[in-house]
């Protein structure tokens, strides 16, 4: 157990240093610290997986490979901190209000604490019921991790056509992390993928809370966290040890980082660079991550054009994203082009299915059905959130308009890309929808809640709402 805990320390430290060096959470405000911690967990683990993969290609899979890459990443992170001026002097943060928190905020804190505690206990108990995870976990992700760990120098056997049913074209973020943790523990204990699943689930809830609390106010942050932690389907998918919640984390992280960049005064470069890293890691998590990354970039482009002055704004706002994105994309490209078999969805024969109107109708019908019962709430969660928005009203601070528009557009574009894959899928459509749609919706759910609570008015219960326009310094 101690070795398993130790395996998380290098990625967390690396992530903490990199995220801080590039401008997140250097102020003493606890919300900013939590934001930094959540981003550090996901980005640190993702970067560690990328580096471990590259080292495996060069030197095979071993404990020495894992330790060496961890040490090199940590040295790289420390060098980045020395190079980046944004990390050194903490910019002036808005001082926290000295007045005591109102009663309603304490009630929200208590409710939030209860919900998070219940979700954590329930999630852990559920995870313990299936130590090897759900079908996709043992059939895809943990199976591949076993090839990486048990295979040693022969780890490429895990990409053999003999296991074509296990999608060997899927990228290796999660299997790499699990295999690396197993090298630390010395054996392939099921606790390692369970712990990784738990960290990604908790980091996603923490990120939603901290981002909304930073960009709006603490009460709104608690509401966002309550709704996410109160979504049983999210908890189940998180503890199923599959890659959908890690992907949801990176998609959310990219949108949060861009929103923080909208609010940052003169330090956007680092935040947009981290956005690029998050998008690259989304592509390193699942094939859908590539569609999500493209959608976020297109949405960012569209919002920049609409804001005007795009000739000077684009290079300044989007060029740093390329600096973060391209190195990770090169890793993904190397894996896809040199090691992995081609994706089954890339067959051109699938394009003929685009002309079948019945497929559009089926996707729409089943999509609406799934949305109606989405999340596993006692009532339809959409039937809860829609009236809530009507009761509270919509209130978007001018500084948050671009963030909200970008997030909504990115979610819509990603959903459209998913619908496009269903249109051309070589599998029976109804089976494919029935076995994957709820997971795809979970991928977009945390980002959707972030956008929702960015737009919906926060409770005016203290007499006036406490809106913020603070960045994440």
């Amino acid at each position, binding site marked *: 157990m101690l070795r398993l805990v130790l395996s998380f320390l290098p990625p967390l430290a690396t992530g903490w240093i990199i995220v801080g060096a590039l401008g997140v959470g250097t102020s003493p405000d606890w919300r900013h610290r939590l934001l930094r911690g959540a981003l550090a967990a996901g980005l640190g683990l993702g970067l560690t997986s990328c580096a471990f993969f590259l080292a495996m290609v060069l030197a095979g899979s071993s404990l020495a490979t894992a330790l060496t890459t961890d040490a090199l990443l940590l040295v790289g992170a420390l060098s980045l901190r020395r190079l980046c001026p944004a990390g050194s002097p903490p910019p002036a943060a808005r001082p926290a209000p000295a007045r005591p928190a109102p009663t309603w905020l304490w009630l929200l804190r208590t409710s939030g604490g209860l919900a998070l505690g219940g979700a954590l206990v329930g999630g852990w*108990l559920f995870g313990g019921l299936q130590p090897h995870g759900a079908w996709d976990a043992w059939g895809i992700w943990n*199976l591949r991790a076993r090839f990486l760990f048990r295979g040693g120098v022969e780890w490429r056997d895990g990409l053999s056509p003999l296991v074509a*049913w296990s999608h060997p074209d899927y990228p290796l973020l999660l299997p790499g992390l699990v295999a690396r943790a197993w090298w630390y523990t010395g054996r392939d204990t099921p606790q390692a993928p369970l712990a990784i699943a738990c960290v990604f689930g908790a980091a996603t809830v923490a990120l939603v809370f901290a981002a909304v609390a930073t960009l709006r106010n603490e009460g709104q942050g608690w509401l966002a966290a309550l709704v996410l932690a109160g979504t*049983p389907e999210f908890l189940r998918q998180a503890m199923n040890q599959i890659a959908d919640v890690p992907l949801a984390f990176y998609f959310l992280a990219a949108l949060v980082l861009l929103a923080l960049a909208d609010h940052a005064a003169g330090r956007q470069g680092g935040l947009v660079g981290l956005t690029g890293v998050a998008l690259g890691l989304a592509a390193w998590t699942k094939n859908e991550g590539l569609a999500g990354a493209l959608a976020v970039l297109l949405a960012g482009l569209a919002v920049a054009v609409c804001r005007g002055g795009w000739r000077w704004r684009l290079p300044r706002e989007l060029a740093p994203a390329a600096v973060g994105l391209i190195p990770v994309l090169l890793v993904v490209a190397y894996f896809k082009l040199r090691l992995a078999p081609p994706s089954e969805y890339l067959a051109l024969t699938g394009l003929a299915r685009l002309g079948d109107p019945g497929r559009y109708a089926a996707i729409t019908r089943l999509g609406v059905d799934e949305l109606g019962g989405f999340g596993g709430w006692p009532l339809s969660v959409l039937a809860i959130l829609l009236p*809530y928005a009507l*009761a509270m009203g919509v209130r978007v601070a001018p500084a948050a308009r671009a963030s909200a528009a970008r997030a909504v557009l990115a979610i819509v574009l990603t959903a459209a890309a998913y619908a496009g894959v269903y249109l051309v899928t070589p599998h029976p459509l109804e089976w494919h929808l029935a076995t994957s749609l709820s997971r795809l919706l979970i991928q977009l759910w945390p980002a959707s809640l972030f956008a929702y609570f960015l737009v919906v008015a926060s*409770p005016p219960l203290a007499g006036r709402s406490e809106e913020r326009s603070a960045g994440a310094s």
Partner: protein
Amino acid sequence: MPRLTVIRAAVAVTLLVALALASVASFLVWTLELRAAPEQLTRPNLATYYQARFTPLRPLLPRNGIVGYVSDRPDADEEYLLTQYALAPLLLDRAGLHAVVIGNFFDPAAAPATAARMGLILLRDLGEGVMLFRGPAG
């Protein structure tokens, strides 16, 4: 701030929080019920069962490479995948001829007939339908 607006917001927030807490509570209760009766899981925990079944076979097998796979129910895909998961990084081939062949039998009594038909020689019977054969390529 109009009083009606505050009341409306208070009701909306209270309902949202109450529903979220009810949702977490229902998930917690469902999980505790499953722990009390794990057979209610939609897909029983076969991965753990297959781990236990095939662990004694692993020391008898090569560390890497391809071995054959045979079963009295060749159409049972999930059981084949579970065996592959249990024995990775070995690759299990259901089609080719191999020197080492693993048997996964639902009905162990069906093994001799299957082995005779495929020209397999039984090396070890580890119980619960798990067998090790020498194949025709051996």
